[in-house]
């Protein structure tokens, strides 16, 4: 049985527990033995992305203590996983740290690449969705091909979602333009961040999307905040919820 430690990013824990529940149940449907380390907090990304790497050391050390000695660490957030893999350098790089970093996966890539999941017979979602790939998932984790480079197109989240009964897709005019969340950018650069978010949700709305679906809940939190303020009739769901068979919420 595949042993998985569930990594629930701090903002998912506090604001979007249903996303963590869907992630857990989905992994269990594919036969994983999922364990949730109770002392987890955060991966350290907010401090490191602000330049204050030393301030991330405590969170990083704690992350390693929580997640040592498992086969896989899986979390429903691309930028957090990317931080662990690529930027997790505030602490000394011993064997335990190196192992944790190498074993940490974003949910979609874990389903697609490691478990080879292609069928979701329990899931039905008769709605038009706009797929949003967070920039870190897209250009750094390579979850899908990106528009700046001519390449044979691929999309791991699209491959998974296409197996869901009844689902239809709306394609926005700028499919991989950043939505403007950017972590602390969202508050330190509020005018540009909000404008980017408004443009993003308007683009999806014009394309005919009912629901914006993403593997990155932080992007969705920002977009949802923008859409609600603008009065747009859009819903927002994490890809784990759709793949796990949750109805439209």
């Amino acid at each position, binding site marked *: 049985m595949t042993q998985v430690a569930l990594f*629930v990013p*701090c*903002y998912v*824990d*506090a*604001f*979007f*527990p249903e996303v963590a*529940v869907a992630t857990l149940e989905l992994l269990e449907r594919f036969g994983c033995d999922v*364990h*949730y380390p*109770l002392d*987890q*907090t*955060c991966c350290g990304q*907010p*401090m490191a*992305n602000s*330049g*204050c790497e030393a*301030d*991330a050391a*405590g*969170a990083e050390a*704690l992350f390693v203590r929580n997640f040592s000695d498992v086969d896989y660490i899986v979390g429903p957030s691309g930028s957090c996983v990317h931080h662990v893999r690529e*930027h997790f350098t505030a602490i000394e790089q011993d064997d335990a740290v190196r192992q944790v970093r190498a074993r940490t996966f974003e949910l979609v890539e874990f389903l697609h690449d490691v478990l080879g999941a292609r069928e979701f017979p329990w899931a039905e979602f008769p709605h038009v969705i706009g797929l949003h790939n967070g*920039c*870190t998932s897209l*250009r750094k984790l390579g979850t899908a091909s*990106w528009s*700046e*480079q*001519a390449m044979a197109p691929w999309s791991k989240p699209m491959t998974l979602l296409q197996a869901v009964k009844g689902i239809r897709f709306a394609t926005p005019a*700028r499919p991989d*333009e*950043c939505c*403007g*969340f*950017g972590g*602390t*950018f*969202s*508050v*330190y*650069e*509020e*005018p*540009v*961040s909000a*404008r*980017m*978010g408004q*443009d993003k949700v308007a683009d999806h709305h014009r394309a005919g999307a009912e629901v914006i679906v993403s593997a990155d809940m932080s992007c969705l*939190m*920002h977009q*949802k*905040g*923008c859409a*609600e*303020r603008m009065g747009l009739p859009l819903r927002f769901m994490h890809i784990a919820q759709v793949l796990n068979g949750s109805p439209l919420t």
Partner: protein
Amino acid sequence: MTERIDHAEASSGFIAASDHLEFHDRRLWDLRGKRDRATAAIPEWEELRTLASQIKEHTLTHLGAYLEQFERAAQANGVTVHWARDAAEHNQVVYDILAARGAKTLVKAKSMLTDECEMRAFLEPRGIEVIETDLGERIQQLDDEPPSHIVVPAVHKLRADVAEVFARTLGTDPNNHDVHYLAESQRRTTRPSFLTADAGMTGANFAVAETGAIVVCTNEGNADLSVHLPKLYIACVGIEKIIPRTEHLGVFVRMLSRSALGSPITQMTSHFRVPRPGTEMHVVLVDNGRSDRLGMDDFWSSLKCIRCGACMNTCPVYRRSGGLSYGATYSGPIGVIIDPAYNLRKYSALPFASTLNGSCTAVCPVRINIHDQIYKWRRVVAERNALPFAKKQAMKMAGKLLASPRLFRAAVEAAGAGVEYLPRVMLYNRLNAWGKQREVPQAPPQTFRQWWLAQRAKKEPR
């Protein structure tokens, strides 16, 4: 103490003018789309990027030798070569060349380097009239504004703005916003200057070490007129513009305009090598911080930049804040990684004017890892104590809180504290900034951890 550029504050002014913002975003996104199509039509585009990056890396690794080779070749061609350590030396060298020949008027093509050196502000009080002859650059000169983009300097202006500037400075009809009318008006007022100017000036897109040639890529022909009509020609060249051989132009010229505007090549690719009989040609090789940057482990590769502007066109932050909001000669992603090297404190906010989305890196024709360098500059800003005090304190507190499961749980699970607390964890200060144009997420009745303890913990071996 230098004033810190507040990009966020400046961008809010830009965003408030929504017709300008929408035009700016659309115009530059259109260039990005043209660039995508032009590059996709070259099957070996990604290999070209790698090759271009390697040529630049090789050249920068042997920069001293190639600069000296260039100097020898140029001198053999009858060109006078000058070296300038910094902006002040550059401006003085140019002034001395002009003053020694009694030159009072200078027609010039676009050059980011002369903007970087603030050359016009140095020459004009000393009695030299400088006339920008690139249309966009001329608009900006007449409006007394710096360029907002390194390729399309007045891209932030609407036609009506240009009509207003020309009416005020050239006496044109303020109500005629027709593009052809405006371009023709500028042309009629600028062209006579070519015939009467004492000297001409260009920058350089490339300087070829083996031949001593200056290569200038333009779309308006103004560089050629600036060089060929006056009796004195001065080229101002940043030392990173050197390429070893003419054949390398076969890589860079293919990439430059495709990356910049999505066109296969600029209208004119001019090679200036030997002064015409009876005239003089001078080249000023300028360092101005480039050698220092070359010595920076994390940032030296920014010197590979060929100034195509592709990173600016694709940058969602740049498109929505405008080049002037960066308060620097170089704006957009490339500016964000160059400007702090000139003045860390003044430009300390710029590395934070990015979502780290990585689109800039993906379009860069010479494969500069722009978004990685933005990330690294943030650390330099913090380590050199150039973060705002409140932000620094907030990060210190967040770091302590997130290092302690007990403190973290207490904060998250305190009754009703979710909504107030969590934005603070994630967003730190400027707390109310989230809610200005966005709804705050609703805190659910229980966190995931509470759900797990209630539903699943019994299965958990403790």
